[in-house]
């Protein structure tokens, strides 16, 4: 259960570089059950402002459930304590509603909106769009945007609520390589520059190692590894968690690179 979810004090959403309130999240032996199935099994970790934490693991390992539990959207056992407002981005399953980008971002401020939208809220939404460099999309309809643009719009919606903690569920799954890189560097910029705490579910281990300060590896609902990419990504871990054989290389910048040796099903699995 959520012990406390403080609303952060009104903080200025200035340009890059302004440090907002310090977010902190402490997840303590959280368990999530769906009927008889234990999706998350006693996971504990803490993370603080300025961190980018990547949550990785095979399909069905409990990443999304853990993230939802942390966001307070799922009943769970154990305790989640957080300081600062949380913004949660669900997995992208498209958007069919013919709402404009502006309306979508305003929704991030839903508590401040009434039958009239105050001028300050309009200005706030516009400056949030400006900050992500997508103000030119403001009057476009969300279903007509590309996948990359859509994710930026929903990121703007999150930021409009002036969160201290960003939880994102596979934000890059529908993006091409370039958009993946730019979204992830944007998230890292938000953590470094604005002091946000970012927890992001990712499937791409190389991207996770490159952009996250820390990787949490889930397997069958349990936390099996926690640390920087260089420590977490080992041949043993990949064999145990993903059931693949892989070599761990290094990029020129020293970032670990996972190179699978043999795709599953090619005939000579160990």
């Amino acid at each position, binding site marked *: 259960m959520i012990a406390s979810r403080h609303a952060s004090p009104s903080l200025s959403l200035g340009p890059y570089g302004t440090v907002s309130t310090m977010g902190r999240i402490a997840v303590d032996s959280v368990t999530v059950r769906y009927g008889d199935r234990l999706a998350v099994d006693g996971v504990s970790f803490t993370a603080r402002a300025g961190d980018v934490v990547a949550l990785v693991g095979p399909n069905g390992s409990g990443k999304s459930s853990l993230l939802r539990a942390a966001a307070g959207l799922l009943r769970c056992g154990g305790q989640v304590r957080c300081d600062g407002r949380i913004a949660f981005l669900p997995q992208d399953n498209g958007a069919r509603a013919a709402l404009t980008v502006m309306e979508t971002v305003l929704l991030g401020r839903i508590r401040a909106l009434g039958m009239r939208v105050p001028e300050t809220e309009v200005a706030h939404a516009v400056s949030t769009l*400006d900050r992500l460099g997508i103000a030119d999309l403001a009057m476009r309809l*969300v279903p007509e945007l590309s996948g990359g643009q859509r994710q930026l719009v929903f990121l703007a919606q999150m930021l409009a609520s002036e969160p201290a903690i960003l939880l994102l569920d596979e934000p890059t799954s529908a993006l091409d390589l370039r958009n993946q890189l730019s979204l992830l560097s944007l998230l890292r910029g938000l953590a470094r520059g604005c002091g946000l705490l970012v927890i992001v579910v990712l499937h791409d281990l190389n991207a996770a190692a490159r952009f996250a300060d820390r990787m949490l590896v889930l397997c069958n609902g349990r936390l099996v590894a926690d640390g920087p990419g260089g420590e977490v990504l080992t041949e043993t871990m990949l064999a145990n968690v993903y059931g693949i054989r892989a070599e761990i290389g290094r990029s020129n910048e020293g970032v670990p690179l996972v190179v699978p040796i043999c795709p599953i099903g090619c005939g000579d699995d160990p």
Partner: protein
Amino acid sequence: MAALSAAGAAARDGWRRLAARRAAMLAGGVAFLAVCVVLDAATGPAMLPPAVVARSVLGLGDDPMVNAIVWSIRLPVALMAVLVGAALGLTGAVMQTILNNPLASSYTLGVSAGAGFGAALVIVVGTALPLPEAQAIPLSAFLFAALACAAVWLLGGLRGATPETLVLAGIALMFLFQAALATLQFLASPEALQQIVFWLFGSLQRATWSKLGIVAAVLVVAVPMLMRDAWSLTALRFGDDRAAALGIGVRGVRFRGFVFVSVATGVAVAFVGTIGFVGLVAPHVARMLIGEDQRLMLPGAALTGAALLSVASVASKTISPGALFPIGIVTALIGVPFFAWLIIISRRSHW
């Protein structure tokens, strides 16, 4: 606040223009509706000049004869068309939003069928009731509309009140009530059968000032409560997940929407009978013209529904001079071509 870039300033101006355009559209809708009401009051067995009717409606009429016709006979009918049309437009809009389904309306999901069954029940067994039929029929229709709504909610709620389960429950209820209604029709005497059929066609002619007052009172209470959820309903258009992530109590919004649909459909259908097409189509028209922002889309759907029923009311009196076409039939006959035209001119792939 950081200074806006050129794109930011353009965005702000674009938003202002959009807001102004939408406000102008709503104002245009109100003006159009006013014209419809005057035309509706001018049409009848004795055609009156619209200008004279307009003066009378505004309280400036000096012909007692015209005043009597307008105020005691025609205006209640014309205003009933407006209120019922608005109520049906709103219920359709709310249903389509909370059920995330473009085919949802109180007609397609069993609420109207429930009301029809309630009315038919009184017509068939009416003599056994302590109330006079004129009061028992609307009351029973209202109660069965509420019952149908509650049944949809409970049945759909068994599996978590998701849009899918609620839609399925609604469809099931519609077939159930239609079968029950058909059974009553099968068992009814020829006179009762005729009365049932005419009730189901719908008619505005039963309108009186007191009935009008009841419908107005219900809407005056229910609509502001609905509008408080306007932004939450807008958020729901992106799906439950995204709405919940914004901190919206999705189940609560959906439940309150259901209560509104139950009450507004019940009171509308109770006094004029089942009118199908308005609730389905008015929200789509409003969405195409005004967009998805429910603060404006809901009033837009109400105006569209009101105008549609008002135009249908005029048409029902003019199609064959001297005879009154059932309003429920006329609504679809004039609404479908208009709707088809709107679908053709808009090239959207989403609804």
